[in-house]
């Protein structure tokens, strides 16, 4: 796993973005950008600068699940690894996220260890 990879963190709450950025930095990923919803995130992703997307589900504007669907529908982005970090905990939602092609799903509140484990797992699978 490349620790220099560029990560986009999408959440409507600035404090949650900061927490995730801090946790990522502790895990060795210092190259992060932020967006506050899908509408802001999508054009940023389309620049092709990002290697990994961490997104919330419930956001005003474009939600995380819609962002994920847009990403998977975009020829240049469809292989981008996506981790969902969200308070949404309905089984149907998790199934829908899996069907939409999410690479990992973390429910809030979460711990640094869980975040690390999911990220490791995503890149283990990609690298293998």
């Amino acid at each position, binding site marked *: 796993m490349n620790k220099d990879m560029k990560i986009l963190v999408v959440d409507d709450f600035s*404090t949650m973005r900061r927490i995730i950025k801090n946790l990522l930095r502790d895990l060795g990923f210092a190259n992060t950008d932020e967006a506050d919803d899908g509408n802001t995130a999508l054009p940023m992703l389309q620049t092709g600068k990002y290697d990994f997307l961490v997104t919330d589900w419930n956001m005003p504007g474009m939600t995380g699940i819609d962002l994920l669907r847009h990403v998977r529908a975009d020829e240049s982005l469809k292989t981008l690894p996506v981790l969902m970090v969200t*308070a949404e905990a309905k089984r149907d939602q998790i199934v829908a996220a899996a069907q939409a092609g999410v690479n990992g799903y973390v429910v809030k509140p979460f711990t640094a260890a869980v975040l690390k484990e999911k990220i490791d797992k995503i890149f283990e699978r990609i690298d293998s």
Partner: protein
Amino acid sequence: MTNIKSLDDATALGFENKLKEQANQLKDLVDSGNVAGALAIISELNETRDKTLYQEVGRLTRTLHESIRNFHIDTANTANNEDASKIEDASDRLAYVVEMTNKAANKTLDLVEETMPYASGISTEAKQLKDDWSRLQRKEMKPEEFRALTSKMGTFLSKLCKDSDKVYGNLSAILLAQDFQDLTGQVINRVTTLVKDVEENLVKLVMMAGKVDQMTGNVQQETKQQETNMQGEGPQMNAEAREDVVSGQDDVDDLLSSLGF
């Protein structure tokens, strides 16, 4: 509320009893061929129903007005009303909670981000000194190296004093930043009370409206709202009580692995 309820029941019950009684009379009159008498009973029945209905509608309207007054919703001049409605006040209060929690979270994050480099700096230097110290104990150190170690140790100790004060200070500030819980807790409790009041009044209104429906023979169609399942709900308060919700990360992992993840 109990007053109104019993009053209400009395009216409805009175109407029902009268209905039964007069229905029997009506049947007897029709059977005996007294058409004029039967028609009189029918118009009397109608009158009773109308009277009860007006009473109920009147009571419903009064309660509605009372509820509106209770929440200080001024329909006449909402725009330049100095006493904001309770609902408006509640929204303001909740906005205050969001602001307070946001401030506290940011302050805490600022302090943590500021403190972390101190902790990692202390740790890095202490590790170096520990290695040097072990070499000294194993008598592997040359005199000039020992002199360098002493001066390094001196610098480290004075830096440690300063830095640990800084860390302590920041931790105290983080502690203080938690005072929002007290303030937001009070505000949220007040809003919760208001919501309960609103619900109580709504239930009252629904009950009264139910009586009116009964009089007029209206049947309310139960319109079950189909909620789109993909709508965000935010954090689950009691996930254990719900079948359709996972109760934690382990459940998520199980579900995903059952889907071949």
